[in-house]
């Protein structure tokens, strides 16, 4: 692709994760494209499902239904070799402001977070801020520890060892 030469400098590609408070987790990243493009990749299911599940996570997205408008619902179903049954993640879009902001609930548990993602356009680049607000501190702890908890111990240990190596 000829536009490949324009790919963003390394510093811009940093993904930052911050535990903003006892109940909030924030992930930020700047993309080298205007907000309407990043919004499109986030809000169209056929595009969304191509990036939301990283190959390294070992999960398979079985289905992806997203009605991205205020009051609309979503439902994502995943499978993982370590689980007998597929897992469903679902909720409602509380607010959808095109090219600017999406707010959704996570209703698979009563301790689910409310997620807000904002798209801030700045001179053709877009700062994406992914913000999760959990109802309690324990719920955030649970979510953070989740990757270790849901998997068999050896998977979690391997994960930890690899994280320690990098």
């Amino acid at each position: 692709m000829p536009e490949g030469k324009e790919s963003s400098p390394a510093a811009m590609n940093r993904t930052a994760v911050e535990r903003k408070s006892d109940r909030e987790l924030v992930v930020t990243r700047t993309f080298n494209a205007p907000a309407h493009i990043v919004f499109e990749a986030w809000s169209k299911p056929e595009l969304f499902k191509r990036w939301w599940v990283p190959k390294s996570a070992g999960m398979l997205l079985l289905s992806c239904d997203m009605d991205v408008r205020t009051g609309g619902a979503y439902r994502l179903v995943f499978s993982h070799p370590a689980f007998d049954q597929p897992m469903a993640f679902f909720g409602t879009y509380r607010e959808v402001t095109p090219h600017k902001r999406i707010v959704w609930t996570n209703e698979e548990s009563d301790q689910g977070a409310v997620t807000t993602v904002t798209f801030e356009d700045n001179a053709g680049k877009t700062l994406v801020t992914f913000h999760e607000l959990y109802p309690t501190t324990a719920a955030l702890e649970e979510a953070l520890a989740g990757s270790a908890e849901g998997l068999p111990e050896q998977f979690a240990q391997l994960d930890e060892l690899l994280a320690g190596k990098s």
Partner: protein
Amino acid sequence: MVQYNETGLDASFAALSDATRRGVLQQLALADASITDLAGKFHMTLTGMKKHVAVLERAALVTTEKAGRVRTCRLGVRALEEEAAWIERHRQLWSARFDALDEIVEHLKSKEKADARRKRK
């Protein structure tokens, strides 16, 4: 660098597999507390809380110190490492996810530019 030996990992994951024990760690992250304080906060008997703290202590997630009749608990070295590891694991997931999004965004951008050029002709 591998920081943990396997025994440490086993103890660590076993200790962290319980919601109350994770709650205790969270509480200690805010302030040191006595076993009595913790038992009260988590609506638990003294004996029950002592057991949880003992599990955390074996995993080096908590250290305790007795002064008179009060045993004070504070975060152990490994608790701080675990917290950093959780955040790092989360960062790796998001990094991989956003790398994939980046590729799609670049592709859409090229496509939009190509379309705009076509229209100008």
